[in-house]
C-alpha cells in the first residue's frame, strides 16, 4: 500500500536477496510494490514519486492510537495533495542522527504525537507546496501567485496549463525551502483532509495479517530467543547449569547476562522449552522479602511524615480546617498494574558483517531504542539502525524503558552475523514490567456552614516514575506525574495544600496509560464524598467550584447534557459523573451502572465529552475513547501483588483483561473549542474509574476507596 523508498529498498534487498519485483515481508514498515522510479525528497518529511504518489515520513510510532494517520493528514492538508495517493514510511532513526535530528522528537507518549508536532508538520506540508508551485511557475515562466493547487495538481489560471506534483517534484526538491516564519498555515475551518474521518492508513495490512509487528520479523537464517530474568527485581544471575538445555533439539546456545539468561534456538518454542530446563541460581539481593504489606507500611509512613515537599500551597489550610463546620477525610489506594500489551516485549538484533548493528523492534521511541542498542552493542550511534515495527500495544511500556532492546542486542552479540529474534514469554512480560505505581492518598476537605469547600489537603504517597526513568524531571522533590490532578486542579477552593511523599520500593514503575490517572479516581470520588457530606448534588457541587470560562466547566456541562443528567433512569440504574483534564485536553465522563444483589457491576452506558482544541481524525479519537473505557474497567479487578520481592501474577488467568461482555455503550462527544491542541490517547482514561465508582455509590451507598475490589464488598447486606 505504501511506496517503498530507495533507501529501504536497498536495505530490504540486501537483507532478503529479493528480486526487484517480489513482494517481501520484512524490514521496516513498507510493503514493496513494483520498484518505481526514484521519488524526489521535496522536504525531509515528503517524498513525491513521478507517478504522483506521496510518501509522508512519520517520526512518532503507531501503536493503535491512529496518530500515524493523523500526522499524515496534517501534512497532506497543507501540501494540498490527493489523499488517495498518500502512503507513509517511518523516518530512519539512523539517518535522523546523521541529519541532525531533522525529524524532531521520535518519542510517542503523553498523547503528544499530534499536539507537539502539528505545527512543524503543517509547515512542512505548506513549504513543500510552495516549492512545488514555484517549480511549476518557473517552468511556465509565470508568477507563483498566479497559480493554484488542488489535489496535487498545479494550475496556471490565465493559460489553463496544468501539471501534477509528480512532474515537478524533482525540480522542487532542488529549491531552497521558504523561511519557516513566512509560511502561512490554513485556518482549521478550511480543512478538507485533516479533521475528517479518513480511513486509517495502517488498518488494511493489520486486517490481512501482514507481518507488521516486532514479533513478525523474519530474516534469513534467523534464530529465536526466550529469556528468563531474576524473579526478584534488581537480582542477578549467580550460576546457570545449562547442560540439559544445550542437548535439546534446535538449541544453538545459552547466553548468560548479568540479570538474565536466554536460550537461543531455531524455533521459539524450542528455545522456551529449553529455558525451562535450565537450573538457574539467582542472587536475589536485599529485596527478597518485600511484600504488599511492607510496601503499604512504607506508603502509610510517608503520609505521616512532617515537612514533605509540596506541589501546591495556597492560603492557610490549617486555619481553614480549624474554622470548618465539617471536615471530611478519606484514604484511597490502588495497586501496581502492568501494561499487558498483547504483543510481549520483543527485539530482533543483527550484527552484520559490515559492522552495522540492525535492530527491529516495537518501540514508542525509535531514537531511544537506537541509544539503547548503541550502548548495549558498544557501537557508536551511526553504526546502529533501528527498524520500527508496528507495536502490538504500547500504553507507555515501550517508551522510556528500553530494557528489551538492550537484552536483544546483548543476546545477538553472541551470535555475530546472525539475526536473533528475542520474544518474552507472557510470564516474563507480566513479571518484568515497569508498573503503574502503587499509591496511597489521604484527602481532607473543610466545609463551611453553607456546605462550600474552604480547604483541601491532599497527601500523596507514591513511587516516583521520574526518579527511575527521568530523574532530571523531578523539580523541588516533586514528580508531576505523582501529584497531577491535585497540584493543578481548577476547583476554586481558596486554601489548598498538596504534599508528596516519594516512596520508592524496588519494584520498577513506569508510564502506564495516562500516568497519574489514579489521582483522578481519588479526587473525583472524594469530591463526590464531600458533596454528599455537604448535602449537595454532585454535578451542581462541582459546577459551583468551576469558573465560568474554565474549559473543565464547559466540558462537564456538555457531558451532563449529553448524558441526560437529572432525567429519570430505568429502575435499578444509577449515574455517576467525574471531570479532570490532562494531556492537553479537558474531559468529563458520566456512567450509568447497575449493581445486582450479588454485588456484580454492570456498566450500561458511558458518555464522554472531550475538548482537545482541534480534532484531526474524529473516528480515531472515538476509538481511543472506547478503548480507554474498557481498558480502565479492568482496574476494578486487576492487581499485581508483590510477594517475596516479585510479582505474584504471571498470565491472563490471574491478571485478567476485560472481555467483550463487559464493554459498555460508549458515546463520545468531541467538543473542540479551538486555540490549543490536546491529546486523545489517554485523556479518556482519566474519569472512567471515578464516574463508574460514583455511580456505584449512588446505586449501593457504598464507597469503594481501594482498588481492586470484590463483588462481596458491594453485596446487599
Amino acid at each position: 500500500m505504501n511506496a517503498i523508498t530507495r533507501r529501504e529498498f536497498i536495505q530490504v534487498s540486501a537483507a532478503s536477496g529479493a528480486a526487484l519485483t517480489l513482494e517481501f515481508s520484512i524490514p521496516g514498515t513498507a510493503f514493496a510494490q513494483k520498484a518505481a522510479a526514484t521519488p524526489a525528497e521535496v522536504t525531509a518529511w515528503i517524498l513525491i514519486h513521478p507517478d504522483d504518489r506521496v510518501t509522508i515520513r512519520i517520526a512518532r510510532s503507531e501503536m493503535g492510537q491512529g496518530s500515524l494517520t493523523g500526522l499524515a493528514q496534517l501534512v497532506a492538508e497543507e501540501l494540498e495533495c490527493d489523499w488517495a495517493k498518500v502512503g507513509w514510511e517511518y523516518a530512519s532513526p539512523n539517518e535522523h542522527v546523521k541529519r541532525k535530528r531533522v525529524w524532531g522528537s521520535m518519542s510517542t507518549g503523553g498523547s503528544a504525537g499530534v499536539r507537539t508536532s502539528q505545527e512543524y508538520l503543517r509547515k512542512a506540508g505548506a513549504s513543500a507546496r510552495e516549492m512545488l508551485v514555484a517549480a511549476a511557475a518557473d517552468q511556465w515562466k509565470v508568477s507563483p501567485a498566479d497559480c493554484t493547487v488542488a489535489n496535487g495538481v498545479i494550475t496556471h489560471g490565465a493559460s489553463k496549463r496544468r501539471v501534477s506534483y509528480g512532474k515537478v517534484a524533482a525540480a522542487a526538491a532542488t529549491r531552497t525551502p521558504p523561511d519557516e516564519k513566512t509560511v502561512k498555515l490554513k485556518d482549521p475551518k478550511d480543512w478538507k483532509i485533516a479533521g475528517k474521518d479518513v480511513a486509517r492508513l495502517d488498518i488494511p495490512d493489520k486486517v490481512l495479517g501482514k507481518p507488521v509487528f516486532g514479533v513478525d520479523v523474519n530474516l534469513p537464517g534467523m534464530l529465536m530467543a526466550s529469556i528468563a530474568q531474576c524473579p526478584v527485581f534488581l537480582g542477578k544471575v549467580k550460576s546457570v547449569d545449562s547442560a540439559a538445555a544445550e542437548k535439546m533439539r534446535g538449541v544453538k546456545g545459552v547466553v548468560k547476562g548479568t540479570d538474565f539468561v536466554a536460550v537461543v534456538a531455531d524455533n521459539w518454542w524450542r528455545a522456551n522449552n529449553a529455558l525451562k530446563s535450565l537450573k538457574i541460581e539467582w542472587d536475589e539481593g536485599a529485596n527478597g522479602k518485600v511484600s504488599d504489606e511492607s510496601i503499604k507500611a512504607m506508603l502509610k509512613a510517608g503520609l505521616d511524615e512532617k515537612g514533605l515537599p509540596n506541589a501546591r500551597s495556597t492560603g492557610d489550610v490549617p486555619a481553614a480546617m480549624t474554622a470548618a463546620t465539617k471536615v471530611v477525610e478519606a484514604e484511597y489506594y490502588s495497586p501496581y498494574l502492568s501494561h499487558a500489551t498483547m504483543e510481549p516485549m520483543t527485539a530482533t538484533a543483527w550484527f552484520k558483517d559490515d559492522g552495522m548493528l540492525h535492530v527491529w523492534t516495537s518501540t514508542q521511541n525509535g531514537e531511544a531504542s537506537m541509544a539503547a542498542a548503541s550502548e548495549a552493542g558498544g557501537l557508536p550511534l551511526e553504526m546502529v539502525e533501528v527498524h520500527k515495527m508496528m507495536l502490538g500495544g504500547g500504553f507507555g511500556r515501550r517508551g522510556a524503558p528500553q530494557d528489551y532492546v538492550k537484552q536483544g542486542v546483548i543476546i545477538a552479540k553472541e551470535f555475530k552475523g546472525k539475526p536473533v529474534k528475542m520474544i518474552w514469554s507472557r510470564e516474563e512480560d507480566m513479571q518484568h514490567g515497569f508498573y503503574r505505581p502503587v499509591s496511597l492518598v489521604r484527602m481532607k476537605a473543610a466545609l463551611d456552614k453553607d456546605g462550600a469547600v474552604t480547604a483541601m489537603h491532599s497527601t500523596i504517597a507514591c513511587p516516583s516514575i521520574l526518579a527511575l526513568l527521568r530523574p532530571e524531571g523531578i523539580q523541588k522533590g516533586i514528580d508531576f506525574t505523582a501529584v497531577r490532578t491535585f497540584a493543578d486542579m481548577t476547583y476554586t477552593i481558596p486554601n489548598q495544600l498538596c504534599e508528596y511523599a516519594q516512596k520508592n520500593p524496588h519494584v520498577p514503575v513506569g508510564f502506564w496509560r495516562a500516568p497519574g490517572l489514579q489521582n483522578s479516581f481519588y479526587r473525583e470520588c472524594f469530591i463526590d464524598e464531600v458533596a454528599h457530606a455537604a448535602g449537595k448534588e454532585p454535578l451542581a457541587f462541582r459546577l459551583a467550584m468551576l469558573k465560568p470560562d474554565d474549559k473543565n466547566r464547559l466540558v462537564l456541562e456538555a457531558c451532563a447534557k449529553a448524558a441526560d443528567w437529572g432525567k429519570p433512569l430505568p429502575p435499578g440504574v444509577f449515574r455517576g459523573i467525574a471531570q479532570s483534564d490532562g494531556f492537553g485536553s479537558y474531559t468529563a465522563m458520566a456512567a450509568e451502572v447497575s449493581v445486582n444483589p450479588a454485588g456484580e457491576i454492570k456498566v450500561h452506558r458511558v458518555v464522554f465529552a472531550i475538548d482537545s482544541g482541534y480534532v484531526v481524525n474524529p473516528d480515531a479519537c472515538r476509538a481511543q475513547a472506547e478503548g480507554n473505557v474498557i481498558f480502565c474497567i479492568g482496574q476494578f479487578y486487576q492487581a499485581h501483588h508483590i510477594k517475596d520481592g516479585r510479582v505474584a501474577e504471571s498470565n491472563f488467568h490471574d491478571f485478567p483483561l476485560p472481555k467483550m461482555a463487559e464493554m459498555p455503550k460508549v458515546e463520545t462527544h468531541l467538543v473542540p473549542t479551538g486555540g490549543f491542541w490536546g491529546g486523545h490517547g489517554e485523556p479518556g482514561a482519566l474519569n472512567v474509574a471515578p464516574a463508574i465508582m460514583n455511580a456505584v455509590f449512588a446505586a449501593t451507598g457504598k464507597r469503594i476507596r481501594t482498588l481492586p475490589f470484590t463483588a462481596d464488598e458491594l453485596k446487599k447486606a
Partner: protein
Amino acid sequence: MISITVNGKAQKLDVEEDMPLLWALRDELKLMGTKYGCGIAQCGACTVHVDGQPVRACVTPVGSVQGKKVLTIEGLSKPGLHKVQKAWIEHAVPQCGYCQTGMMMAAAALLQKTPQPTDAQIDDAMTNLCRCGTYARVKKAIKSVAAGGKSAPAKA
C-alpha cells in the same frame, strides 16, 4: 514427519509432535499472521481453524492436527478479502491490531455456525482478549456481516 494442510497447501513438517501448532505455523512455515499472546489458551490471539472449528493454536499440538485442514488468517483472505475482513476495514476495528487476526478467525467461525448471532451469542463466542479495547467495533462488524454487510459505518 507430520503432514498437515495449511491454507489448502499440503505441508510436511519435521518437528516434534508436541510442538504447538502456533509455533509450527510461525517459526517453521513463517506464517506470521497467527499471534502469540499467552500460550495458555487465555487470549485467543492464536486462533486458527482446524477442519472448520476455531482452535487456540498455542495449546494444540501439531501432531494432533495430522491430516487435518488448518486455515489461518493468510488463508482467510484467499482468493479475495473475506466478508469479515471487509467489515473489519469498514468499521475501522483494529487499533494496534495484534489481537485482530485471532479475533477475525473467531468471528468467521462464529458466523459460519451462527450466521445471525445475538449479542449474547457474540459475547459467548468471542472470548478473545483485546487490550486496546476494540470490542464495540468487533461486535458492530460481526453484526454488519450478519446483516449482509448493510449497516451504518462505524461511528461508535
